[in-house]
């Protein structure tokens, strides 16, 4: 394998890794703040993909513009899910909470998959925009425009999220609830309301991720689990607490997958992430960027 092929592989790994990062930030936000694992996160991405697909195929709305629709739609789905499903789980504590969150969200993911097969059929959908085939070539390396725009949008959104969590009082309240829910409650913060907002934000991020996935890669009703698995690996790699840490871990997974599939064949792609997952769990359980304790 020559240098150019390697570089090209890494570039594509970087692009897909940025999406792993976004998927993982959504998962990590809910896990860090609410201490529940939302297994249905991948299905929320899948739904967002279909939102983009249908507004494109029915109304001809540009897939990147459709993010402006899929994000608010998924934000509302998040609010609704919290109201109908997760609110009951917040009332539990400790082990009962994590166990029930797993069971309930796993059930939810199955239901969403079944509904998607029913209404959208099991066919794979993707969006071919007029500019889909075009790319920038830099020193022999191909940079498709769609991937570049995706990356640009992702950087914008996670920077905005970072600013929101670090600088605004609402963001600080979310961080306070993540750090110590009782102490936040004693400071006058209505925990339930901020949990609801957190789930909605996470769903909105899955909205972004899902729309970008259908532009670059394609969506089926069962695609969620693939992205969920990648997201989980990234969350474990990164540890919770840092948006850019999680994003970097996403990129890392993308790069490692790309290299291993070039070197050892496409099948190794599925394995390498899980191997990293195990190694990090054994050697550095707080994650690469997480803090101890």
């Amino acid at each position, binding site marked *: 394998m020559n240098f150019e092929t390697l570089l090209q592989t890494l570039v594509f790994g970087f692009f897909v890794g940025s999406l792993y990062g976004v998927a993982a930030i959504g998962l990590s936000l809910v896990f860090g703040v609410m201490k529940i694992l939302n297994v249905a996160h991948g299905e929320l991405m899948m739904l967002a993909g279909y939102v983009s697909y249908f507004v494109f195929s029915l109304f001809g709305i540009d897939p990147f513009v459709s993010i402006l629709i899929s994000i608010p739609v998924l934000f509302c789905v998040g609010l609704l899910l919290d109201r109908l499903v997760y609110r009951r789980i917040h009332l539990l504590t400790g082990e009962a909470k994590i166990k029930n969150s797993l069971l309930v969200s796993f059930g939810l993911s199955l239901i969403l998959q079944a509904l998607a097969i029913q209404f959208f059929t099991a066919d794979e959908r993707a969006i071919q925009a007029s500019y889909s085939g075009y790319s920038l070539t830099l020193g022999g390396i191909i940079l498709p425009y769609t991937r570049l725009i995706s990356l640009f949008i992702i950087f914008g959104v996670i920077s905005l999220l970072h600013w929101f969590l670090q600088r605004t*009082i609402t963001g*600080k309240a979310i961080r306070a609830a993540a*750090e*110590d829910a009782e102490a936040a*409650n*004693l*400071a*006058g913060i*209505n925990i339930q309301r901020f949990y609801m907002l957190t789930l909605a934000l996470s769903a909105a991020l899955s909205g972004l991720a899902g729309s970008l996935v259908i532009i670059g890669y394609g969506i089926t009703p069962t695609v969620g689990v693939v992205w969920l698995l990648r997201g989980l690996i990234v969350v474990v790699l990164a540890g919770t607490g840092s948006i850019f840490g999680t994003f970097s871990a996403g990129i890392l997974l993308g790069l490692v997958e790309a290299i291993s599939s070039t070197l050892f064949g496409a099948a190794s792609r599925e394995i390498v992430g899980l191997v990293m997952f195990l190694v990090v769990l054994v050697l550095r359980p707080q994650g690469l960027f997480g803090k101890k304790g």
Partner: protein
Amino acid sequence: MLEVKNLGVAYGDVRAVWDISFHVNVGEIVVLIGPNGAGKTSTLRSIAGLQPIVAGQVDYLNKPIHQPKLFTHAHELVSQGIVLVHEGRRLFGSMSVSENLELGAFSPQARKVKNRTLTQVFEMFPRLAERKDQRANTMSGGEQQMLAIGRAMMGLPKLLILDEPSLGLAPLVVKLIFDVIRELNQQGMTILLVEQNAKRALALASRAYVIEQGRIAGTGTGAALLNDPNVQHSYLGGVL
């Protein structure tokens, strides 16, 4: 101001508080003393709206706030003026001093006068002003306790509840904390205090209650309890 009637608190099948009744009048410093595991912290957590009660009733400003079937959450009580400084301080350790204080003024009415309250907090604890950009968990125990009290002040408490504010602190800092409690009281804040340091606490108290095994075992003015032979024996090390 606060009236606790036959309070019962349980964690699952484990009863922490059996039958506790006491009251706090406006402007008082009321102290609860008692051995570890007597139910003091559970009592405070219930009053502040962190733990539902299983028996009895708690009234605040002549209105019931807690009954076995009525639970007012902590954040609602903060806007009504009940603020608890939890045992162990419970700061937001990864955030700065300023951010902790800002979050203390989260309720709408507190947020409106945030800057004015902040000036008062910094006047009372100049150390916090010096360290306002420092991460809370990198400060000393004494500074952290100042921040915990400062954060509570930001919520504009009418009734400030403190759980073991002097625990694990150096004697000089303990004195500072008690001076601050006295000063806040003189400014008109009503105080409910749980303390291991019974001698200092009783010296400060308008009235005090002794809690043992989830029940009230005695009550009196601070001075009366300081001179009570049983209290001296059990909580004041037998010497005075």
